[in-house]
Protein backbone atom coordinates (compact mmCIF):
# COMPACT_ATOMS: atom_id res chain seq x y z
CA UNK A 1 0.00 0.00 0.00
CA UNK A 2 2.35 2.69 -1.24
CA UNK A 3 -0.22 5.47 -1.37
CA UNK A 4 -3.96 5.70 -1.58
CA UNK A 5 -4.03 5.97 -5.38
CA UNK A 6 -2.43 2.62 -5.92
CA UNK A 7 -4.38 0.45 -3.51
CA UNK A 8 -4.93 -2.84 -5.30
CA UNK A 9 -8.04 -4.64 -4.07
CA UNK A 10 -8.68 -8.11 -5.47
CA UNK A 11 -11.91 -10.04 -5.17
CA UNK A 12 -12.10 -13.84 -5.16
CA UNK A 13 -15.79 -14.78 -5.36
CA UNK A 14 -17.32 -17.57 -7.40
CA UNK A 15 -20.85 -16.23 -7.25
CA UNK A 16 -21.17 -14.01 -10.29
CA UNK A 17 -23.83 -11.85 -8.66
CA UNK A 18 -21.77 -11.22 -5.55
CA UNK A 19 -18.61 -10.80 -7.56
CA UNK A 20 -20.29 -8.03 -9.52
CA UNK A 21 -21.77 -6.42 -6.40
CA UNK A 22 -18.41 -6.31 -4.61
CA UNK A 23 -16.55 -5.08 -7.68
CA UNK A 24 -19.08 -2.33 -8.23
CA UNK A 25 -18.99 -1.31 -4.56
CA UNK A 26 -15.21 -1.14 -4.30
CA UNK A 27 -14.80 0.53 -7.70
CA UNK A 28 -16.90 3.44 -6.50
CA UNK A 29 -13.73 4.73 -4.87
CA UNK A 30 -11.43 5.83 -7.72
CA UNK A 31 -8.41 5.33 -5.47
CA UNK A 32 -8.86 1.56 -5.57
CA UNK A 33 -7.92 -0.58 -8.52
CA UNK A 34 -10.03 -3.74 -8.55
CA UNK A 35 -9.43 -7.16 -10.08
CA UNK A 36 -11.84 -10.05 -9.83
CA UNK A 37 -11.41 -13.83 -9.83
CA UNK A 38 -13.97 -16.62 -9.75
CA UNK A 39 -11.77 -19.31 -8.23
CA UNK A 40 -8.72 -19.71 -6.01
CA UNK A 41 -6.60 -21.33 -8.72
CA UNK A 42 -6.77 -18.34 -11.11
CA UNK A 43 -6.20 -15.95 -8.23
CA UNK A 44 -3.13 -17.78 -6.92
CA UNK A 45 -1.57 -17.76 -10.39
CA UNK A 46 -1.57 -13.95 -10.26
CA UNK A 47 -0.57 -13.52 -6.62
CA UNK A 48 3.00 -12.54 -7.58
CA UNK A 49 1.56 -9.14 -8.54
CA UNK A 50 0.99 -8.58 -4.79
CA UNK A 51 -2.39 -7.02 -4.15
CA UNK A 52 -2.73 -4.86 -1.06
CA UNK A 53 -6.10 -6.23 -0.01
CA UNK A 54 -7.92 -9.41 -1.00
CA UNK A 55 -11.53 -10.29 -0.28
CA UNK A 56 -12.14 -14.02 -0.42
CA UNK A 57 -15.33 -15.99 -0.33
CA UNK A 58 -15.17 -18.56 2.45
CA UNK A 59 -16.55 -21.32 0.25
CA UNK A 60 -14.93 -21.36 -3.18
CA UNK A 61 -15.43 -24.25 -5.61
CA UNK A 62 -11.77 -25.29 -5.59
CA UNK A 63 -10.60 -24.31 -2.10
CA UNK A 64 -12.01 -23.33 1.25
CA UNK A 65 -11.32 -20.00 2.92
CA UNK A 66 -8.93 -21.35 5.55
CA UNK A 67 -6.66 -23.00 2.99
CA UNK A 68 -6.67 -19.98 0.70
CA UNK A 69 -6.00 -17.62 3.62
CA UNK A 70 -3.02 -19.75 4.66
CA UNK A 71 -1.63 -19.70 1.12
CA UNK A 72 -1.91 -15.93 0.88
CA UNK A 73 -0.35 -15.39 4.30
CA UNK A 74 2.53 -17.73 3.58
CA UNK A 75 3.18 -15.82 0.34
CA UNK A 76 3.08 -12.38 1.95
CA UNK A 77 2.02 -11.77 5.52
CA UNK A 78 1.33 -8.11 4.80
CA UNK A 79 -1.53 -8.71 2.37
CA UNK A 80 -4.76 -7.90 4.18
CA UNK A 81 -7.31 -10.66 3.71
CA UNK A 82 -10.99 -10.00 4.28
CA UNK A 83 -13.12 -13.13 4.37
CA UNK A 84 -16.70 -12.73 3.15
CA UNK A 85 -19.00 -15.58 3.98
CA UNK A 86 -22.60 -16.71 4.06
CA UNK A 87 -21.86 -18.33 7.40
CA UNK A 88 -22.27 -16.35 10.56
CA UNK A 89 -20.64 -18.99 12.71
CA UNK A 90 -18.59 -17.45 15.49
CA UNK A 91 -16.06 -20.29 15.73
CA UNK A 92 -15.31 -20.09 11.99
CA UNK A 93 -14.81 -16.34 12.27
CA UNK A 94 -12.52 -16.73 15.30
CA UNK A 95 -10.46 -19.40 13.57
CA UNK A 96 -10.02 -17.23 10.46
CA UNK A 97 -9.05 -14.19 12.49
CA UNK A 98 -6.60 -16.32 14.47
CA UNK A 99 -5.04 -17.44 11.21
CA UNK A 100 -4.47 -13.85 10.18
CA UNK A 101 -7.63 -12.70 8.41
CA UNK A 102 -8.02 -8.95 8.75
CA UNK A 103 -11.79 -9.16 9.09
CA UNK A 104 -14.70 -11.52 8.64
CA UNK A 105 -17.81 -10.15 7.00
CA UNK A 106 -21.10 -12.01 6.71
CA UNK A 107 -23.04 -11.63 3.46
CA UNK A 108 -25.84 -9.54 4.80
CA UNK A 109 -27.64 -6.47 3.66
CA UNK A 110 -24.97 -4.06 4.98
CA UNK A 111 -22.10 -6.02 3.41
CA UNK A 112 -21.19 -3.13 1.11
CA UNK A 113 -20.81 -0.55 3.89
CA UNK A 114 -18.98 -2.98 6.10
CA UNK A 115 -16.60 -3.89 3.32
CA UNK A 116 -15.81 -0.26 2.47
CA UNK A 117 -15.23 0.55 6.14
CA UNK A 118 -13.00 -2.46 6.55
CA UNK A 119 -10.94 -1.59 3.48
CA UNK A 120 -10.63 1.98 4.67
CA UNK A 121 -9.44 0.84 8.10
CA UNK A 122 -7.00 -1.62 6.57
CA UNK A 123 -5.47 1.17 4.49
CA UNK A 124 -5.20 3.51 7.47
CA UNK A 125 -3.61 0.76 9.53
CA UNK A 126 -1.18 -0.14 6.77
CA UNK A 127 -0.20 3.50 6.32
CA UNK A 128 0.51 3.70 10.04
CA UNK A 129 2.59 0.54 9.91
CA UNK A 130 4.53 1.92 6.94
CA UNK A 131 5.11 5.16 8.82
CA UNK A 132 6.25 3.36 11.95
CA UNK A 133 8.60 1.20 9.90
CA UNK A 134 10.06 4.32 8.24
CA UNK A 135 10.56 6.00 11.62
CA UNK A 136 12.06 2.83 13.03
CA UNK A 137 14.48 2.73 10.11
CA UNK A 138 15.32 6.37 10.74
CA UNK A 139 16.21 5.54 14.34
CA UNK A 140 18.25 2.54 13.22
CA UNK A 141 20.10 4.73 10.71
CA UNK A 142 20.65 7.38 13.38
CA UNK A 143 22.41 4.83 15.56
CA UNK A 144 24.55 3.42 12.79
CA UNK A 145 27.88 2.74 14.52
CA UNK A 146 29.84 5.03 12.21
CA UNK A 147 27.47 7.90 12.92
CA UNK A 148 27.25 7.23 16.64
CA UNK A 149 30.75 6.42 17.81
CA UNK A 150 32.68 9.36 16.44
CA UNK A 151 36.39 9.82 16.81
CA UNK A 152 39.78 8.63 15.56
CA UNK A 153 41.72 8.45 18.80
CA UNK A 154 43.14 5.09 19.84
CA UNK A 155 41.06 5.29 23.04
CA UNK A 156 37.70 5.51 21.26
CA UNK A 157 38.76 3.08 18.52
CA UNK A 158 39.46 0.52 21.23
CA UNK A 159 35.97 1.08 22.63
CA UNK A 160 34.49 0.80 19.12
CA UNK A 161 36.18 -2.55 18.57
CA UNK A 162 34.74 -3.78 21.86
CA UNK A 163 31.27 -2.53 20.91
CA UNK A 164 31.45 -4.38 17.58
CA UNK A 165 32.14 -7.60 19.45
CA UNK A 166 28.81 -7.32 21.25
CA UNK A 167 26.62 -6.96 18.16
CA UNK A 168 26.36 -10.57 17.04
CA UNK A 169 25.51 -12.03 20.43
CA UNK A 170 23.36 -11.36 23.48
CA UNK A 171 26.10 -11.06 26.06
CA UNK A 172 25.34 -8.75 28.99
CA UNK A 173 27.29 -5.54 28.58
CA UNK A 174 28.34 -3.08 31.23
CA UNK A 175 29.37 0.35 30.07
CA UNK A 176 31.44 2.43 32.41
CA UNK A 177 32.85 5.91 32.13
CA UNK A 178 32.57 9.40 33.52
CA UNK A 179 29.42 11.46 33.28
CA UNK A 180 28.84 12.66 29.74
CA UNK A 181 31.07 10.11 27.99
CA UNK A 182 28.09 8.67 26.09
CA UNK A 183 27.13 5.50 27.96
CA UNK A 184 23.50 5.58 26.84
CA UNK A 185 24.51 6.40 23.27
CA UNK A 186 26.70 3.29 23.28
CA UNK A 187 23.84 1.20 24.70
CA UNK A 188 21.53 2.42 21.92
CA UNK A 189 24.21 1.83 19.30
CA UNK A 190 24.58 -1.77 20.47
CA UNK A 191 20.81 -2.30 20.41
CA UNK A 192 20.15 -0.69 17.01
CA UNK A 193 23.02 -2.54 15.37
CA UNK A 194 22.05 -5.92 16.79
CA UNK A 195 19.45 -8.46 15.69
CA UNK A 196 17.13 -7.01 18.35
CA UNK A 197 16.89 -3.65 16.59
CA UNK A 198 13.23 -4.08 15.59
CA UNK A 199 12.19 -4.64 19.20
CA UNK A 200 12.07 -2.18 22.07
CA UNK A 201 15.02 -0.38 23.57
CA UNK A 202 13.92 0.46 27.10
CA UNK A 203 16.08 2.67 29.30
CA UNK A 204 15.67 2.89 33.05
CA UNK A 205 17.69 5.32 35.09
CA UNK A 206 17.88 3.52 38.38
CA UNK A 207 19.06 6.65 40.20
CA UNK A 208 16.12 8.71 38.96
CA UNK A 209 13.41 6.47 40.41
CA UNK A 210 12.67 6.57 44.15
CA UNK A 211 13.69 3.36 45.90
CA UNK A 212 10.14 2.36 46.82
CA UNK A 213 9.02 2.52 43.18
CA UNK A 214 11.91 0.88 41.40
CA UNK A 215 10.75 -2.70 41.98
CA UNK A 216 7.33 -1.98 40.43
CA UNK A 217 9.00 -0.09 37.62
CA UNK A 218 11.30 -2.99 36.75
CA UNK A 219 9.04 -5.96 37.40
CA UNK A 220 5.53 -4.52 37.07
CA UNK A 221 2.59 -5.09 39.40
CA UNK A 222 -0.86 -6.60 39.53
CA UNK A 223 -3.99 -4.61 40.21
CA UNK A 224 -4.34 -4.00 43.95
CA UNK A 225 -0.77 -5.12 44.70
CA UNK A 226 -0.31 -1.99 46.80
CA UNK A 227 -2.10 1.27 47.54
CA UNK A 228 -2.43 3.14 44.27
CA UNK A 229 -2.00 0.09 42.06
CA UNK A 230 -5.34 0.61 40.35
CA UNK A 231 -4.43 -1.38 37.26
CA UNK A 232 -2.11 -4.14 36.23
CA UNK A 233 1.08 -2.65 34.83
CA UNK A 234 3.88 -4.45 33.07
CA UNK A 235 7.41 -3.65 34.11
CA UNK A 236 10.43 -2.62 32.07
CA UNK A 237 11.67 -6.20 31.74
CA UNK A 238 8.45 -7.22 30.00
CA UNK A 239 8.35 -4.00 27.98
CA UNK A 240 11.80 -4.78 26.66
CA UNK A 241 10.97 -8.41 25.86
CA UNK A 242 12.73 -9.40 22.67
CA UNK A 243 14.72 -6.16 22.81
CA UNK A 244 17.20 -4.51 25.13
CA UNK A 245 16.86 -3.19 28.68
CA UNK A 246 19.35 -0.48 29.55
CA UNK A 247 19.86 -0.14 33.30
CA UNK A 248 21.58 3.18 33.74
CA UNK A 249 23.33 4.02 37.00
CA UNK A 250 23.10 0.41 38.14
CA UNK A 251 25.54 1.20 40.93
CA UNK A 252 22.80 3.21 42.64
CA UNK A 253 20.45 0.25 42.97
CA UNK A 254 19.31 -0.40 46.50
CA UNK A 255 21.02 -3.40 48.09
CA UNK A 256 17.74 -5.24 48.76
CA UNK A 257 16.72 -4.94 45.12
CA UNK A 258 20.08 -6.17 43.90
CA UNK A 259 19.10 -9.67 45.04
CA UNK A 260 15.83 -9.51 43.08
CA UNK A 261 17.62 -8.25 40.00
CA UNK A 262 20.18 -11.03 40.30
CA UNK A 263 17.42 -13.61 40.52
CA UNK A 264 15.70 -12.16 37.44
CA UNK A 265 18.94 -12.21 35.45
CA UNK A 266 19.80 -15.75 36.51
CA UNK A 267 16.37 -17.29 36.00
CA UNK A 268 15.41 -15.13 33.01
CA UNK A 269 12.06 -14.62 34.62
CA UNK A 270 10.38 -11.99 36.73
CA UNK A 271 7.40 -12.01 39.08
CA UNK A 272 5.11 -9.00 39.10
CA UNK A 273 4.44 -7.48 42.54
CA UNK A 274 1.23 -8.98 43.86
CA UNK A 275 1.56 -12.14 41.78
CA UNK A 276 3.13 -15.55 42.25
CA UNK A 277 3.32 -16.40 38.58
CA UNK A 278 6.80 -16.17 37.08
CA UNK A 279 6.99 -14.60 33.62
CA UNK A 280 9.79 -15.59 31.28
CA UNK A 281 11.55 -12.84 29.36
CA UNK A 282 14.03 -12.66 26.55
CA UNK A 283 15.74 -9.35 27.12
CA UNK A 284 19.31 -8.30 26.57
CA UNK A 285 20.73 -6.38 29.49
CA UNK A 286 23.08 -3.46 29.10
CA UNK A 287 24.00 -1.74 32.35
CA UNK A 288 25.95 1.42 32.93
CA UNK A 289 27.55 3.13 35.85
CA UNK A 290 29.93 5.96 36.51
CA UNK A 291 31.11 4.12 39.63
CA UNK A 292 33.89 1.62 40.00
CA UNK A 293 31.71 -1.36 40.80
CA UNK A 294 34.62 -3.43 42.01
CA UNK A 295 35.29 -0.80 44.62
CA UNK A 296 31.60 -0.77 45.52
CA UNK A 297 31.77 -4.55 46.00
CA UNK A 298 34.75 -4.13 48.30
CA UNK A 299 32.85 -1.53 50.29
CA UNK A 300 29.93 -3.96 50.58
CA UNK A 301 27.61 -1.62 48.68
CA UNK A 302 27.21 -3.84 45.65
CA UNK A 303 26.60 -7.59 45.67
CA UNK A 304 29.55 -9.57 44.40
CA UNK A 305 27.34 -12.16 42.68
CA UNK A 306 25.43 -9.44 40.80
CA UNK A 307 28.72 -7.79 39.90
CA UNK A 308 29.95 -10.96 38.22
CA UNK A 309 26.58 -11.51 36.53
CA UNK A 310 26.68 -8.02 35.03
CA UNK A 311 30.35 -8.04 34.09
CA UNK A 312 29.67 -10.14 31.02
CA UNK A 313 31.38 -7.75 28.67
CA UNK A 314 32.79 -4.52 30.13
CA UNK A 315 33.26 -1.47 27.92
CA UNK A 316 35.10 1.47 29.44
CA UNK A 317 34.46 4.76 27.70
CA UNK A 318 37.38 7.16 27.78
CA UNK A 319 36.98 10.70 29.11
CA UNK A 320 37.09 13.34 26.40
CA UNK A 321 40.27 14.87 27.77
CA UNK A 322 42.13 11.67 26.87
CA UNK A 323 40.86 11.62 23.30
CA UNK A 324 43.13 14.30 21.81
CA UNK A 325 41.90 15.66 18.48
CA UNK A 326 38.61 13.81 18.76
CA UNK A 327 37.47 17.07 20.36
CA UNK A 328 37.63 18.76 16.95
CA UNK A 329 36.01 15.85 15.11
CA UNK A 330 33.16 15.84 17.62
CA UNK A 331 32.92 19.64 17.55
CA UNK A 332 32.52 19.57 13.76
CA UNK A 333 29.87 16.84 14.11
CA UNK A 334 27.91 18.89 16.64
CA UNK A 335 28.16 21.99 14.44
CA UNK A 336 26.78 20.01 11.46
CA UNK A 337 23.92 18.54 13.50
CA UNK A 338 22.95 21.79 15.21
CA UNK A 339 23.06 23.89 12.02
CA UNK A 340 21.05 21.29 10.12
CA UNK A 341 18.44 20.87 12.85
CA UNK A 342 18.06 24.60 13.35
CA UNK A 343 18.30 25.46 9.65
CA UNK A 344 21.15 27.90 10.10
CA UNK A 345 24.11 28.32 7.71
CA UNK A 346 26.87 25.85 8.42
CA UNK A 347 29.65 27.32 10.53
CA UNK A 348 33.34 26.46 10.78
CA UNK A 349 35.84 26.75 13.59
CA UNK A 350 38.59 29.36 13.46
CA UNK A 351 42.12 28.19 14.27
CA UNK A 352 41.99 30.08 17.56
CA UNK A 353 38.69 28.44 18.45
CA UNK A 354 40.15 25.01 17.68
CA UNK A 355 43.11 25.74 19.92
CA UNK A 356 40.81 26.87 22.71
CA UNK A 357 38.71 23.73 22.42
CA UNK A 358 41.80 21.51 22.45
CA UNK A 359 43.17 23.23 25.54
CA UNK A 360 40.21 22.54 27.77
CA UNK A 361 39.76 19.54 30.08
CA UNK A 362 35.95 18.93 29.75
CA UNK A 363 34.81 17.69 33.15
CA UNK A 364 31.37 17.19 31.59
CA UNK A 365 32.94 15.29 28.68
CA UNK A 366 31.08 15.04 25.35
CA UNK A 367 27.87 16.42 26.79
CA UNK A 368 29.73 19.56 27.85
CA UNK A 369 31.43 19.89 24.47
CA UNK A 370 28.09 19.70 22.73
CA UNK A 371 26.59 22.42 24.91
CA UNK A 372 29.67 24.58 24.44
CA UNK A 373 29.48 24.26 20.66
CA UNK A 374 25.75 24.93 20.49
CA UNK A 375 26.18 28.03 22.62
CA UNK A 376 29.06 29.21 20.45
CA UNK A 377 26.97 28.84 17.27
CA UNK A 378 24.18 30.89 18.79
CA UNK A 379 26.47 33.56 20.25
CA UNK A 380 28.70 34.02 17.20
CA UNK A 381 27.69 36.48 14.50
CA UNK A 382 29.97 35.22 11.78
CA UNK A 383 30.11 32.07 9.70
CA UNK A 384 33.28 31.18 11.57
CA UNK A 385 33.18 30.38 15.26
CA UNK A 386 35.77 32.52 16.97
CA UNK A 387 37.65 31.79 20.19
CA UNK A 388 35.69 34.40 22.10
CA UNK A 389 32.41 32.74 21.05
CA UNK A 390 33.43 29.74 23.13
CA UNK A 391 32.51 29.85 26.79
CA UNK A 392 33.31 26.93 29.05
CA UNK A 393 31.17 26.16 32.03
CA UNK A 394 34.17 26.37 34.38
CA UNK A 395 34.78 29.95 33.15
CA UNK A 396 31.60 30.94 34.89
CA UNK A 397 32.50 29.41 38.21
CA UNK A 398 32.93 31.44 41.28
CA UNK A 399 36.70 31.84 41.75
CA UNK A 400 36.19 30.60 45.28
CA UNK A 401 35.13 27.23 43.86
CA UNK A 402 38.16 26.73 41.67
CA UNK A 403 40.87 28.09 43.89
CA UNK A 404 41.10 24.94 45.98
CA UNK A 405 43.16 21.95 45.06
CA UNK A 406 40.29 19.61 44.32
CA UNK A 407 39.71 16.52 42.20
CA UNK A 408 37.63 16.74 39.05
CA UNK A 409 34.73 15.04 40.80
CA UNK A 410 34.91 17.47 43.68
CA UNK A 411 34.76 20.35 41.21
CA UNK A 412 31.66 18.82 39.63
CA UNK A 413 30.04 18.60 43.02
CA UNK A 414 30.99 22.20 43.73
CA UNK A 415 29.38 23.30 40.48
CA UNK A 416 26.16 21.55 41.34
CA UNK A 417 26.24 22.91 44.87
CA UNK A 418 26.70 26.44 43.52
CA UNK A 419 23.76 26.01 41.17
CA UNK A 420 21.58 24.54 43.92
CA UNK A 421 22.10 27.68 45.95
CA UNK A 422 21.77 29.99 42.97
CA UNK A 423 18.52 28.45 41.71
CA UNK A 424 16.97 27.64 45.07
CA UNK A 425 17.22 23.84 44.64
CA UNK A 426 15.12 23.87 41.45
CA UNK A 427 16.48 20.56 40.14
CA UNK A 428 14.65 20.74 36.82
CA UNK A 429 15.99 24.22 36.07
CA UNK A 430 19.51 23.30 37.15
CA UNK A 431 19.44 20.16 35.03
CA UNK A 432 18.44 22.31 32.10
CA UNK A 433 21.10 24.95 32.81
CA UNK A 434 23.89 22.39 33.18
CA UNK A 435 22.50 20.17 30.40
CA UNK A 436 22.68 17.07 32.54
CA UNK A 437 20.01 14.66 33.70
CA UNK A 438 18.01 15.32 36.85
CA UNK A 439 19.08 11.90 38.04
CA UNK A 440 22.71 12.97 37.87
CA UNK A 441 21.95 15.93 40.11
CA UNK A 442 20.09 13.77 42.63
CA UNK A 443 22.97 11.35 42.60
CA UNK A 444 25.43 14.16 43.24
CA UNK A 445 23.31 15.51 46.10
CA UNK A 446 23.34 12.03 47.61
CA UNK A 447 27.11 11.94 47.18
CA UNK A 448 27.46 15.37 48.80
CA UNK A 449 25.38 14.18 51.75
CA UNK A 450 27.53 11.09 52.11
CA UNK A 451 30.65 13.28 52.11
CA UNK A 452 29.01 15.71 54.49
CA UNK A 453 29.39 18.64 52.13
CA UNK A 454 25.71 19.34 51.67
Amino acid sequence: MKDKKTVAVWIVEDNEWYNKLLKHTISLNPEYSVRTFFNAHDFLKELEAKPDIVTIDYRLPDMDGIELLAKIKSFDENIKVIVISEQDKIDTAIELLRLGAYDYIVKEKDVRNRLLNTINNAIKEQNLVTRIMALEQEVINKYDLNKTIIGASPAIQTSLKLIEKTLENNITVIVTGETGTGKEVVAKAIHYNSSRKHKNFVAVNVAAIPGELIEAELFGHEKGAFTGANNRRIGKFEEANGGTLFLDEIGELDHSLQAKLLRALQEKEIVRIGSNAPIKFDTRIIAATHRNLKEEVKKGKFREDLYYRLMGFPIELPPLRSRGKDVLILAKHFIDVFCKENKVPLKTLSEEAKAKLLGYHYPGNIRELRSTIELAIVIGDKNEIMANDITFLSDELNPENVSDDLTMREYELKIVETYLKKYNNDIKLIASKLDIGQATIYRMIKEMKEKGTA
Partner: protein
Amino acid sequence: MKPNMPGMKISYNLSGLDGLEDKHDQFIKEMIRLFIKGTSSGMKGMQVAAKEKDWNTVAEHAHKILGPCKHLEVMPLAKTLRSIENTIFDLKKTDGIPELVEQAEEEAKETIKVFEKLISE
Protein backbone atom coordinates in the same frame (compact mmCIF):
# COMPACT_ATOMS: atom_id res chain seq x y z
CA MET B 1 -47.83 -22.91 1.24
CA LYS B 2 -47.88 -24.66 -2.10
CA PRO B 3 -45.95 -22.38 -4.44
CA ASN B 4 -48.36 -22.66 -7.34
CA MET B 5 -51.30 -21.95 -5.12
CA PRO B 6 -53.04 -18.66 -5.70
CA GLY B 7 -51.95 -16.07 -3.17
CA MET B 8 -48.23 -16.82 -3.19
CA LYS B 9 -46.70 -13.44 -2.69
CA ILE B 10 -43.18 -12.65 -3.83
CA SER B 11 -41.50 -9.94 -1.82
CA TYR B 12 -38.11 -8.33 -2.25
CA ASN B 13 -36.14 -5.29 -1.18
CA LEU B 14 -33.67 -3.55 -3.49
CA SER B 15 -32.28 -1.13 -0.91
CA GLY B 16 -29.19 -3.32 -0.62
CA LEU B 17 -28.25 -2.06 -4.08
CA ASP B 18 -28.72 1.59 -3.22
CA GLY B 19 -25.84 3.88 -4.02
CA LEU B 20 -24.91 7.43 -4.77
CA GLU B 21 -23.21 6.72 -8.05
CA ASP B 22 -24.35 7.81 -11.50
CA LYS B 23 -26.20 5.32 -13.68
CA HIS B 24 -27.68 3.76 -10.59
CA ASP B 25 -30.79 2.43 -12.36
CA GLN B 26 -28.59 0.79 -14.92
CA PHE B 27 -26.64 -0.94 -12.15
CA ILE B 28 -29.81 -2.20 -10.46
CA LYS B 29 -31.09 -3.60 -13.74
CA GLU B 30 -27.78 -5.29 -14.39
CA MET B 31 -27.83 -6.87 -10.94
CA ILE B 32 -31.39 -8.10 -11.44
CA ARG B 33 -30.46 -9.60 -14.80
CA LEU B 34 -27.56 -11.36 -13.15
CA PHE B 35 -29.88 -12.56 -10.40
CA ILE B 36 -32.26 -14.05 -12.95
CA LYS B 37 -29.38 -15.70 -14.80
CA GLY B 38 -27.81 -17.12 -11.65
CA THR B 39 -31.08 -18.30 -10.16
CA SER B 40 -32.18 -20.00 -13.41
CA SER B 41 -28.94 -21.86 -13.90
CA GLY B 42 -28.68 -22.68 -10.21
CA MET B 43 -32.17 -24.12 -10.11
CA LYS B 44 -31.46 -26.22 -13.18
CA GLY B 45 -28.35 -27.61 -11.56
CA MET B 46 -30.28 -28.30 -8.39
CA GLN B 47 -32.97 -30.24 -10.21
CA VAL B 48 -30.40 -32.40 -12.02
CA ALA B 49 -28.58 -33.11 -8.77
CA ALA B 50 -31.87 -33.90 -6.98
CA LYS B 51 -32.79 -36.43 -9.67
CA GLU B 52 -29.42 -38.07 -9.16
CA LYS B 53 -29.88 -37.86 -5.39
CA ASP B 54 -26.61 -35.96 -5.19
CA TRP B 55 -27.69 -34.05 -2.09
CA ASN B 56 -24.39 -32.33 -1.48
CA THR B 57 -24.55 -30.74 -4.91
CA VAL B 58 -28.17 -29.79 -4.25
CA ALA B 59 -27.05 -27.96 -1.09
CA GLU B 60 -24.16 -26.32 -2.94
CA HIS B 61 -26.56 -24.91 -5.53
CA ALA B 62 -28.96 -23.75 -2.81
CA HIS B 63 -26.06 -22.03 -1.06
CA LYS B 64 -25.03 -20.27 -4.25
CA ILE B 65 -28.49 -18.94 -5.05
CA LEU B 66 -29.18 -18.04 -1.44
CA GLY B 67 -26.57 -15.23 -1.22
CA PRO B 68 -28.23 -12.83 -3.66
CA CYS B 69 -31.70 -13.89 -2.41
CA LYS B 70 -30.77 -12.92 1.13
CA HIS B 71 -29.25 -9.66 0.00
CA LEU B 72 -32.41 -8.71 -1.87
CA GLU B 73 -34.64 -10.25 0.82
CA VAL B 74 -36.38 -12.35 -1.84
CA MET B 75 -39.14 -14.23 -0.04
CA PRO B 76 -40.21 -16.98 0.20
CA LEU B 77 -37.40 -18.35 -2.01
CA ALA B 78 -34.62 -17.38 0.44
CA LYS B 79 -36.36 -19.26 3.27
CA THR B 80 -36.79 -22.45 1.22
CA LEU B 81 -33.19 -22.38 0.00
CA ARG B 82 -32.00 -21.89 3.58
CA SER B 83 -34.04 -24.96 4.63
CA ILE B 84 -32.45 -27.07 1.89
CA GLU B 85 -28.96 -25.98 2.81
CA ASN B 86 -29.44 -26.40 6.56
CA THR B 87 -31.15 -29.78 6.27
CA ILE B 88 -28.35 -31.24 4.16
CA PHE B 89 -25.26 -29.49 5.56
CA ASP B 90 -26.12 -28.96 9.21
CA LEU B 91 -28.73 -31.63 10.03
CA LYS B 92 -27.14 -34.14 7.63
CA LYS B 93 -30.60 -35.27 6.55
CA THR B 94 -32.29 -35.65 3.19
CA ASP B 95 -35.89 -36.22 4.29
CA GLY B 96 -38.21 -33.91 2.41
CA ILE B 97 -35.47 -32.48 0.20
CA PRO B 98 -37.13 -33.44 -3.13
CA GLU B 99 -40.29 -31.62 -2.01
CA LEU B 100 -38.29 -28.58 -0.93
CA VAL B 101 -36.45 -28.53 -4.28
CA GLU B 102 -39.80 -28.64 -6.08
CA GLN B 103 -41.07 -25.81 -3.90
CA ALA B 104 -37.93 -23.73 -4.54
CA GLU B 105 -38.34 -24.32 -8.27
CA GLU B 106 -41.85 -22.86 -8.25
CA GLU B 107 -40.86 -19.94 -6.05
CA ALA B 108 -37.88 -19.20 -8.29
CA LYS B 109 -40.13 -19.17 -11.38
CA GLU B 110 -42.50 -16.71 -9.74
CA THR B 111 -39.64 -14.52 -8.54
CA ILE B 112 -38.04 -14.46 -11.98
CA LYS B 113 -41.38 -13.43 -13.51
CA VAL B 114 -41.65 -10.53 -11.06
CA PHE B 115 -38.08 -9.41 -11.72
CA GLU B 116 -38.40 -9.72 -15.49
CA LYS B 117 -41.43 -7.48 -15.33
CA LEU B 118 -39.54 -5.04 -13.14
CA ILE B 119 -36.64 -4.58 -15.55
CA SER B 120 -38.89 -4.35 -18.58
CA GLU B 121 -40.74 -1.33 -17.10
